């Protein structure tokens, strides 16, 4: 018994278990949600949130925090809704510029040993300002191919589930199963050991920030594929949601202990929490509060498990 229910297993099962519990509760309240259409509708918006959560996870892995991811996703959505439609070459260049900016930010934060919170808080203004300059009023349109991708209706399995599985699998293989992935996680877990072993911490940090930029960009593209029009503030709440998603998914705040699969599950849990409250007929005012409550409950459970482990 003691070996079967070891704290370690409990901890890794916790994110998936909370999601399953939430799913069951939703299906019990609203049996029609357990259909192809129901899942498609409920999970659609989970894709951009999952991508943004993965972006945040890369930053958290190296013990930093990105408070600009929401503004950056909004910026990318605005580029995709305007430049990428009207002048694709410039659109691609602008998006690449965003990723480059992220890599340089990683370098700046590492070289000058700056607090990521303050730097990214400043960057959130830069992204928001740039988005407002590109798209002063809500509008734009989504590029045809993104729209096509996001409205795919594969047989049997709803697209959001396929997409979420693919995202989790790709990032899991890249970060958890490759040797350089281990170095990247080590840069958060034990930077000194990684440096002594001859790896460049600067390069590791720039790589992680660049990946955050790439996944933030994908989140922006996915978002505009769903909404078909952009707005500078379209993803403002993603900053907090993405942090909550990583933590929910079993990511630790420091030490490079993260879980890509968990992060995707965390993002889906947060998205579904909204539907759950709607089915319970709780006013939307309490949706953010529910996010906080779920976060606290899961963290409390984890604290209990950790305490059991210490005994």
């Amino acid at each position: 018994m003691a070996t079967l229910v070891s704290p370690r297993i409990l901890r890794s099962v916790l994110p998936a278990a909370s999601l399953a519990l939430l799913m069951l509760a939703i299906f019990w309240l609203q049996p029609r949600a357990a259909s192809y259409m129901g899942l498609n509708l409920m999970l659609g918006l989970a894709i951009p949130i999952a991508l943004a959560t993965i972006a945040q996870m890369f930053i958290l892995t190296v013990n930093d925090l990105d408070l600009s991811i929401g503004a950056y996703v909004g910026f990318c959505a605005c580029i995709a809704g305007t430049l990428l439609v009207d002048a694709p070459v410039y659109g691609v260049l602008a998006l690449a510029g965003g990723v480059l900016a992220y890599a340089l930010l990683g370098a700046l934060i590492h070289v000058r040993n700056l607090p990521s919170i303050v730097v990214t808080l400043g960057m959130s203004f830069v992204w928001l300002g740039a988005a407002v300059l590109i798209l002063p009023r809500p509008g734009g349109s989504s590029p045809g191919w993104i729209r096509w991708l996001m409205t795919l209706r594969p047989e049997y399995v709803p697209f959001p589930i396929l997409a979420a599985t693919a995202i989790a699998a790709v990032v899991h293989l890249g970060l958890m199963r490759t040797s350089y992935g281990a170095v990247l996680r080590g840069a958060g877990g034990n930077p000194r050991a990684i440096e002594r072993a001859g790896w460049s911490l600067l390069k590791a940090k720039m790589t992680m920030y660049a990946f955050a930029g790439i996944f933030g960009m994908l989140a922006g593209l996915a978002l505009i594929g769903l909404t078909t029009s952009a707005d500078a503030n379209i993803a403002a709440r993603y900053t907090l949601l993405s942090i909550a998603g990583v933590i929910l998914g079993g990511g630790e705040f420091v030490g490079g202990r993260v879980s890509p699969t968990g992060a995707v599950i965390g993002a889906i849990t947060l998205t579904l929490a909204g539907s759950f409250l709607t089915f319970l007929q709780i006013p939307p005012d309490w949706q953010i509060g529910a996010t906080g409550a779920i976060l606290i409950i899961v963290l409390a459970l984890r604290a209990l498990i950790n305490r059991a482990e210490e005994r």
Partner: protein
Amino acid sequence: MARLLDKPWLWAFVGAFVVWIATALFTGGMGAGEVLTAAFTFAVFFVIVGIGQMFVITLGPGNVDLSVPATITLAGAVSTKLMDTADSMILIGFLAAMGVGLGVGVLNYGLIRLLRIPPIIATLSAAFIIQSTAIAYGRGLRIKPPEMLADFTTTRIAGMPVLAICVIVLAGVMAVVLNRTIYGRSVIAIGQNRRAARLAGISVEWTRFATYTMCALFASLCGYLLSGFSGGASLGMGEEYLLASIAVVVIGGTSVAGGFSNVPGLWGAALFMFLLVTMLNTFGAAAGVRLIMTGLIIITVIVLAGGRKAPR
């Protein structure tokens, strides 16, 4: 002179002065006094939240209170609704706002302590709940603040807002608290080396509890005064104060790594932030450019201030 140049808060004031002069030169001296009055009027709110946030940040790496905006909104909503425009209820409203602050402080510290999670995550989770409470409680709230409170927050003596004078005094008191009391010295000691502080017999947990509670109290005070100043509470009233509260601390010359802080810099930084936006407005910069400049200047300041190597 050399000692003055050594002060970390000097540059914030220099920056504020330069920006003010640039604005005045652009307009040919027109309205320079009014700009300064406005700067003091608005800087007050930045300074109030900045004081609380500064004590929290001084506690060391990872310590920051992300629930400040939500607390401002909730305290504003609760006190405005309770006072219901009646002058006689001003004190009750104030006490209610402080009650909100106390509750938030206990909640924040409770989460940090019981769940053993980093303060950023704890205050973030708390912020979700506080914000939701404020939204649910304050929906459709269109109550004006009591007249006396509104007057108090907008009265000026010779161009100087009365509130600004009060907050300058408050800042002075808090500077003494930081530098001359056991509590203040404990905060600094914990920020410099928490282990050493504990071994030296400082009550680390009590100090942390007091600091998070104080930060929430200052945020509540800001919400209370802000609702009086801006003609009532609104749901988005706290939004800009997340960046502002951290930015004034950093620009003011406080080390983000903790353990080194100063109060005067808060005033310099708050004035600088307001005057900067005014200058960009005067120059006719578009909203987007203004946002980009604000962001870039904050990053520039933090790069120049440099990351003091955090003691490990």
